[in-house]
């Protein structure tokens, strides 16, 4: 287990280094620069050159990369070219919106998908099971933007139960308002992600029903449902853990769209704004942090999976 962990850790670090080079280089391919944006459309080339010089954009690429990565190793993600504020401060600020949003969305997705997924597997071929299956199919195909709009129209505009957009200026010092502003966006992601997860849980459960050990358990006098709940579901749980890693990555991507739609000041919205402002040091830091997050989730999922599944431990 220790050797496995160390190997996995080395791969994680290698992955981050490769990602940092890719992030750095692909951003440099983008046309346009922040100096021109600051100077605007009534500027002279001299003004733009002056600003470029001030911001240090003229230095050679290897020097810029070395400076950036050197900072990252020391725990410094750099500063925004536009505002001069440290990227890590901004990330911390915006994470206070995006992380709770993601967690809430994940909880909603699990609460919807786990019971309904198992139910529809057990009721396969009957009306209830089919209805849930069809609904899941439909919800998984719904565009996130449309789902969000519908929820806003119903719960914010018609019923006026929840805010239509924005995050309280007081942030988490007003926890009730903060949670209220996250419910509709989290529901939007949660329903769509949950529908996808439901289909996965359903097929994993169906597979478990067909396994020998469930059949054996049923032969000892348990009903099929009892046998499945006692012996089959732990195995379904295991495969769900490995899919959850992917789901979390999906939620991060979903947050980019949802934060735009609900005007939430989170990481996704910040990223879009920074790319269109060509604030490259900031985008670099944000992308590297997000990549690290997703890679670390994958790492943890692998370790957890290995720790709780005895078969995998015996294999190596």
């Amino acid at each position, binding site marked *: 287990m220790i050797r496995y962990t160390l190997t996995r850790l080395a791969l994680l670090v290698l992955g981050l280094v490769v990602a940092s080079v890719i992030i750095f280089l692909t951003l440099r391919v983008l046309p346009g620069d922040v100096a021109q944006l*600051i100077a605007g*459309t009534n*500027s002279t080339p001299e003004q733009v050159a002056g600003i470029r010089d001030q911001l240090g954009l003229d230095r050679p690429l290897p020097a810029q990369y070395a400076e950036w990565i050197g900072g990252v190793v020391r725990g410094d993600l750099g500063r925004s070219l*536009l505002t001069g504020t440290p990227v890590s401060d901004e990330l911390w600020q915006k994470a206070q919106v995006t992380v709770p949003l993601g967690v809430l969305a994940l909880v909603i997705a699990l609460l919807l998908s786990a019971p309904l997924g198992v139910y529809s597997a057990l009721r396969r071929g009957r009306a209830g099971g089919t209805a849930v299956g069809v609904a899941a199919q439909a919800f998984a195909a719904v565009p996130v933007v449309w789902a969000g709009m519908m929820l806003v129209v119903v719960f914010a505009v018609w019923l006026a139960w929840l805010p*239509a957009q*924005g995050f309280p200026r007081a942030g988490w010092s007003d926890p009730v308002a903060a949670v209220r502003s996250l419910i509709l966006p989290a529901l939007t992601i949660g329903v769509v992600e949950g529908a996808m997860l439901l289909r996965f849980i359903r097929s994993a459960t169906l597979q478990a029903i067909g396994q020998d050990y469930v059949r054996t358990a049923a032969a000892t006098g348990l009903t099929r449902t009892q046998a499945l709940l006692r012996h089959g579901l732990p195995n379904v749980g295991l495969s769900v853990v490995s899919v959850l890693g992917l789901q979390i990555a999906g939620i991060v991507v979903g947050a980019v769209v949802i934060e735009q739609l609900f005007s939430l000041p989170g990481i996704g919205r910040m990223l879009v704004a920074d790319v269109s402002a060509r*604030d490259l040091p900031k985008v670099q830091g944000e992308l590297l942090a997000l990549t690290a997050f997703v890679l670390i989730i994958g790492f943890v999922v692998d370790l957890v999976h290995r720790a709780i599944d005895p078969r995998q431990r015996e294999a190596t």
Partner: protein
Amino acid sequence: MLRRTSLAVTALVAAAALTLTACSPGSSPAPTATGAPDPDASISVRLVLEPGNLDIRQTSGAALDQILIDNVYQGLVARTADQEIVPSLASDWTVSEDGLTYTFTVQEGVTFHDGQELTPQDVVWSLTQHRDTAEWVDADTLANVSGVAADGQTVTVTLAAPDSQFLWNLSGRAGIVLKEGDAVDYKTAANGTGPFVLENWTQGDSITLARYDGYWGEPAAAAEVAFEYIPDNQAAMNAALAGELDVVTGFDPNLRSQIEANGDFVLVVGESTDKGTLAFNQTSGPLEDKRVRQAIRQAIDHDAIVEAIGGGQTQYGPIPSLDPGYEDLSALAPYDPEAAMALLEEAGAEDLELTLTIPSFYSTTIPQLLVSDLNKVGITLKVDSVDFPTWLQDVYTNKDYDLSFVLHTEARDFENWANPDYYFTYANPEVTELYAQSRAATSDEEADRLLAEAARIVSEDAGADWLYNGASVVAVSTLVQGMPSANVNERLNVSGLSKSDG
């Protein structure tokens, strides 16, 4: 005219309230919009475009002018929504006969938001510093200033040559008065003399201004104004309907019926200096031929464009009706596809293929109409939608385009037609000379006449096409009074904005 519109709206609301009261005799009057303004009110205003940072000295773009000038920062003079120049930090001024010396009387008792006093020396320092720092926005507009001196409360500015735009420029970025030697981090903070203090900026979300209690003039009517940045029109309307916004600027007129059905909002439409400009790259290629450019102008149904975007008016020359030098030039490019085809044939430019480069944040309405209009006269238009930094590099800096569409919002920006290096690629020495003469004129009438003459030549040359002159469309809560209606995308003075408690 514009004043009258908002007055009429208020009157209507009041009349409606009276009618309601009259209908229910015996009952006590219901609380209505006629309630007294609440001095503790916080008003939320939807804006579209967030600034990248708050450095008013160095960062260009209307997003900063819109919220910071008049509200947080001030100059010796200011401009009203109707584009008139009025006193601000200077209580009055005189101009010498030869147009070379401007003498301002600086207000007394003015303090910056951090409590420091404004001195005439600050004015001298600000103007000199602005002229001498090339990276500051509009530094070149002060190049003509040969001297600034203070004597008591009087500040004298001497020009090397007369400049009919000088006061106008002073009412913008170039004229902002800062504290000499101030240690503010201008990118994220502000220290001005205006009626509002910058209270909070949540990047990617909102900017909040709070009433400055030490303000030298009439204090702001509301305790707080929060600018919420919501790019999406439908999302902004939903937020308004859910009661989270009091004012929606940049309202999409096509959503009019939805917001009016609710009854809590009225639509206020004002003029603007937004010019939907279709630029022609005319240095080489088919568009070098004036007949081809003229054909494109005549192939476009401008009335249909105005109708499709749901507001504004047609514009057939470089100067919009709010700006000096405006005249109706519609006769120069009437909609006539037949004439357009004849011109193209004459120029030997049939089966033309052109590319329209357009920043991606504009809606697809305009490109669709252009593709269809030009197709009717035999021009195939390919639309290339790019993000703004790409547009800046390809079109603005490298002038690598055929046609380009951008909404130019700045007031009084005729100068770009006199500058052959601008991305419009329009070069006519006669226009450059007329503009120089207009700048040097010592009377407004003379300056305006010369501008109008130059504008007519630009339109006759088909230097570009102007698809429309945008309207400033704002949805205002019936509880809110004092919302300016004209040109709010460029300058939005919110000191008179108030909200009643119901």
